[in-house]
């Protein structure tokens, strides 16, 4: 039943960067991008480096502002265009509906890893004890050594940071997940742990958009591929 429920609808999305500092040159990235993602479905964005995969994913999270087009988010059963809605609603959608794992971790400094993960759950409405339990469970499954839990991730290795990042993205039962290279800096064992967690979220109905150069991981996660380079706008 839930399999056909649409969670995300991208309609005629267009993004051009205008670099005012460089004489206002225009940097067209993509145009006329449209696709839908349903509950329990995973779409992998593919395309050459610089084709706009991360730009598209960031737009879906309202971190980048599209030049035109719509990004309709199924937010508690209502369609909301995250590209045009007021800032307050964008934040609410991020808290309650969309989880995002960026390519590189960027977090509030000086906060321990476990608190970073738990805070996401608390912001989404979990009581603090439950949030802490969920954080512990995830960090354990992602094999983050326990002595690192109380340390801020600033000094972590790339793979350790990425596991904190994944835990932050999966600690809530988000109905939409946006993942930019979630497994890139992980070794085989940890990659497997991350894939398992993402597949569980998918089984529970998350609509997932992922960028993943690693073909083994991509094949296990994605139901279909979406080639962003096909939408290259003329310069």
């Amino acid at each position: 039943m839930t399999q056909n429920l649409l969670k995300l609808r991208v309609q005629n999305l267009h993004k051009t960067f205008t670099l005012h500092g460089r004489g206002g040159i225009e940097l067209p990235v993509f145009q006329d991008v449209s696709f839908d993602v349903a509950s329990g479905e995973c779409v992998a964005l593919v395309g050459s480096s610089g084709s706009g995969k991360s730009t598209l994913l960031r737009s879906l999270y309202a971190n980048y502002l599209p030049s035109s087009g719509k990004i309709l988010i199924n937010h508690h059963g209502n369609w909301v265009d995250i590209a045009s809605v007021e800032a307050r609603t964008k934040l609410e959608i991020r808290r309650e509906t969309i989880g995002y794992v960026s390519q590189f971790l960027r977090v509030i400094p000086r906060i321990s890893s476990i608190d970073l993960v738990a805070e996401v759950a608390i912001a989404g409405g979990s009581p603090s004890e439950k949030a802490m339990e969920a954080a512990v469970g995830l960090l354990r499954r992602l094999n983050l050594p326990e002595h690192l839990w109380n340390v801020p991730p600033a000094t972590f290795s790339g793979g350790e940071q990425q596991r904190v990042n994944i835990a932050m993205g999966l600690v809530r039962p988000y109905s939409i997940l946006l993942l930019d290279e979630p497994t890139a800096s992980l070794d085989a064992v940890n990659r497997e742990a991350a894939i398992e967690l993402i597949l569980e979220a998918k089984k529970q109905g998350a609509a997932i958009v992922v960028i993943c150069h690693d073909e083994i991981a991509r094949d296990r996660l994605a139901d279909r591929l979406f080639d962003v380079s096909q939408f290259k706008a003329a310069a």
Partner: protein
Amino acid sequence: MNALLEAQSVGHSYAGGQLGCEDVSFRLYPGEVLGVVGESGSGKSTLLGCLSGMIEPSQGSVRFDAGGQGLRDVFSLSEPERRLLMRTDWGIVRQNPRDGLRMNVSAGGNVGERLMAVGARNYTEIRGEALDWLTRVEIPSGRIDDLPRTFSGGMQQRVQIARILVSKPRLVFMDEPTGGLDVSVQARLLDLLRGLVRDLGVAAVVVTHDLAVVRLLSDRLMVMRQGRVVESGLTDQVLDDPQHPYSQLLVSSVLQA
């Protein structure tokens, strides 16, 4: 949810015609933190003054919802009403703690005074609560009877914050809260502010020239230039994908925010 504060086409020109700010409109909701950045002289402090009842704007209106009674024009309140608002629902963190503290009153007295202003009378309770708040801002309990002038700048700033938060305001205005402090003290103060804003769910308007401060504290951001708001949006969007030429310049001038 109803807005807590609403600015409608707020503008102010100083005597002699010097433009302070113009045509600023936004709504702030309970628990939201709005950052205001922009070059020196762009009107940030003027705007903050207008919002916090200190400068009567020459154009537009500022409305505030005191105690869930709906939005009311701040400048149509009577003077005593406005003063009460400033001591209870609002807190103003001054850039210079000397402007926000009574320098000839002890740290504990500075905090207790705000409580008395909202009706507390029991000395032991007032002292207890003052001590509790000074501890929360990491002032050692042994210093409660010391005068602020015997404190370092960072400590004074923390006493000022305790003084303001003790009355559980719903809205806090901050003008360069970390200005003039050295970097490690700034970091601690920011962590503290962030924690308090979170835990208490207070709304805030934070004026700063430091993009790292807004990245950390604010949900939304307004970029000001020559008295006007040139761009506004989610803080991370404005910093990562700035649209206006001036915002792009501002973001590209710092190494990493």
